[in-house]
């Protein structure tokens, strides 16, 4: 499987894919286990490798540029793909990018695990176990803190939830509290039982649909930042309507799973004055979406893509550095 190194980034993808195609062509002819017969009955494969295996017969010495061109012009077929995480450096969730977008994994280590998992039940079970552990880690982070809620009230419970996730909280009339480098935070907000939470900065946190329970209890929340949260999607946005009377600022910049369908249910938030919907990779036409959202929320200032963006080429964009809170 040793393939010579190639010159540019794009073309260097092809040695791994060639290796995979060689491997998969070999696999098809040697696949003899009876228990694997179910795989032969699978519908037409949607994997990138198999699509390429049909067009590239076993032959490592073929013209590399031609293969790369064929790769780029005939993208592999897939069911509606979830948009991959564009910012791989999200806090503490780098491993989860594989859960979000397995298509984006062209690394050599991953294909070796795939190779082994196709042949050995043990490796397949190990891989499934690792995946499930990652998913359960996110569930664990989003568990409700019922005992804190009962004892100290919803504001303290919500603040504890956010701080535990790694975000920042601002109570009414006070400064921002955030955890330090190692994730520790002081517990002196426990005495603020009657003080409402005004602003939450949950950028990069692993908040998902279940975790929003704790946030929705904060009835006087005015400003919510959900930048680059990898698990916030359209379903989560449809849950935000209880905060309609107080929420004035919402930021969804860089969330990989939010699409224009979720943005359509933001019209419940009639008090919203600032909305940031820039850099949403799952939105199909950012310029048009921004115009429609502006029409939907007439009294709100919408920060988003430039309306002429769809006319430009190049999907690579630098992350928008929206002003975060200054540390206390």
């Amino acid at each position, binding site marked *: 499987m040793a393939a010579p190194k190639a010159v540019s980034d794009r073309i260097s993808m092809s040695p791994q894919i060639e290796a995979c195609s060689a491997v998969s062509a070999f696999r*098809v002819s040697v696949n*003899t286990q*009876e228990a694997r017969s179910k795989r032969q*009955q*699978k519908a037409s494969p949607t994997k990138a490798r198999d699509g390429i295996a049909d067009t590239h017969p076993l032959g490592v010495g073929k013209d590399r540029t031609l293969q790369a061109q064929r790769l780029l012009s005939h993208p592999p077929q897939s069911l*509606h793909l979830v948009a991959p995480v564009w910012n791989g450096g999200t806090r503490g969730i780098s491993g989860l990018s594989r859960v979000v977008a*397995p298509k984006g994994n062209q690394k050599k280590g991953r294909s070796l695990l795939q190779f082994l998992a196709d042949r050995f039940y043990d490796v397949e079970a190990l891989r499934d176990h690792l995946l499930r552990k990652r998913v359960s880690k996110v569930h664990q982070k989003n568990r409700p803190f019922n005992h804190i809620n009962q004892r100290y009230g919803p504001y303290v419970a919500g603040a504890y939830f956010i701080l535990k996730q790694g975000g920042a909280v601002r109570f009414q009339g006070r400064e921002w509290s955030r955890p330090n480098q190692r994730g520790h935070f002081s517990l002196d907000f426990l005495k603020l039982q009657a003080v409402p939470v005004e602003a939450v900065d949950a950028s990069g946190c692993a908040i998902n649909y279940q975790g929003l329970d704790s946030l929705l209890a904060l009835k006087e929340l005015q400003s919510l930042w959900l930048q680059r949260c990898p698990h916030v999607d*359209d379903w989560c946005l449809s849950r935000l309507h209880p905060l309609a009377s107080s929420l004035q600022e919402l930021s969804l910049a860089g969330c990989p799973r939010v699409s224009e369908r979720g943005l359509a249910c933001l019209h419940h938030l009639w008090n919203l004055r600032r909305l940031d919907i820039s850099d949403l990779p799952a939105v199909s036409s950012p310029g048009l979406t921004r115009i429609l959202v502006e*029409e*939907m929320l007439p009294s709100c200032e919408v920060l988003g893509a430039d309306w002429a963006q769809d006319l430009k080429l190049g999907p690579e964009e630098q992350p928008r550095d929206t002003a975060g809170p200054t540390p206390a």
Partner: protein
Amino acid sequence: MLRRTLLLGLGRGPLGRGLGTHRGGSILDRDGKMSEIKKKIRSILPGGDWNPLYDTSYLPPESSDVVIVGGGVLGLSVAYWLKKLEKPRGAIRVLVVERDHTYSRASTVLSVGGIRQQFSVPENVQLSIFSIDFLRNINEYLAVADDPPLDIQFNPSGYLLLASEKGAAIMENNVKVQRQEGAKVCLMSPEQLRNKFPWINTEGVALASYGMEHEGWFDPWCLLQGLRRKVQSMGVLFCRGEVTRFVSSSNLMKTASGEEVNLKRIHEVHVKIDQSLEYQPVECAIVINAAGAWSGQVAELAGIGKGPPGTLQGTKLPVELRKRYVYLWHCPQGPGLETPFVIDPSGTYFRREGLGHNYLGGCSPTEEEEPDPGNLEVDHDFFQDRVWPPLAQRVPAFETLKVRSAWAGYYDYNTFDQNGVVGPHPLVINMYFATGFSGHGLQQAPAVGRAVAEMVLEGHFQTINLSSFLFSRFYSGEKVQEHNII
């Protein structure tokens, strides 16, 4: 002599028939021959079906524990839950028989794709609530290793049902029932409606109910493909054919009260292969009728309804084909991104489609104007006469619109009470129904599949109690009427 026979047997001489000259193919057709050689080797090695005479991979197996007639979303959902809930793993062999692999006339793919919890029957609300949970966690339920995750393109925009003066009291009752089951619905007065949706003309509207969460529309094709992929990975067998006959046996038995009943049990299903006279008898233990709009015909094959009218033997399955039209139009001044799925008191409905001011909508015809369900041709006069006037009255911007396209699809219409039939037949004891949902089969499919699988595996409903949806209600006359059929 031994050497001569050996030479004859091997036959590598000029007249020998090796693999390369089989069927007189030329030596230039190398790729075709290579694939044929690979196919032959694969069939010889253990694990493949070794049939030296001819290829029978298109035929269904000779026996199968469960045969599901119909491969639409309901059939695949039942297959999925059977495989998921079976103990031990791999215990049940399931065969799904679908005669059209392109799904060109299936109700699933021609559907508008809406899902709502705003029903009046509590069981329907529970079914929808579970189904929306299923759709939200679809990548946990239908995950297949190495395949990309599914995106069903769910639009959480909600349903807006409008009621006139007459229907306002019923709507309030319905909303109370829905809230009890856990749906998040709010009631709006005409002024609140005008504030929220300024493009609506609230003349004639007394009350509106708006679903805030868990309602909207999605892509049914994606759900179907996701189910298909998952179900194939779980080991369910698929067959492309049509069920033409059931071979069953009868048992004359006495009930506890001394009455004599004739219980039938289906032993074989004859599956006829497409475009051929060939059929394969499949021995089976259980048959599930998920044939959608054609379930009535399948039930007749099993002998349901053959008897004196008024008796249980004579009660047919009242599911018929009904044709419904869906129109897609463009209106540049129309309502914007916040448009929910709006249902007018007259029965007309529409929803937003995409970002380009396109809308999908239609109307259910009355009993007298039912179109002929023989084909799927669209009647554009129906739009002009029955759909457009109420639409233009409700949304004044729709006075100028341009119809872009239209299609027709079938409802598996239950003529008795327009609600689904679930569970076993009282006389044909191993036929289970999962059909008759009259236009909301897609949105209740995951939950119904689970209910039928529980019925098959355990003998009773465990999670959602659908005993009011059993077949016996057609004989006893207890209607489960739903007030919000679109």
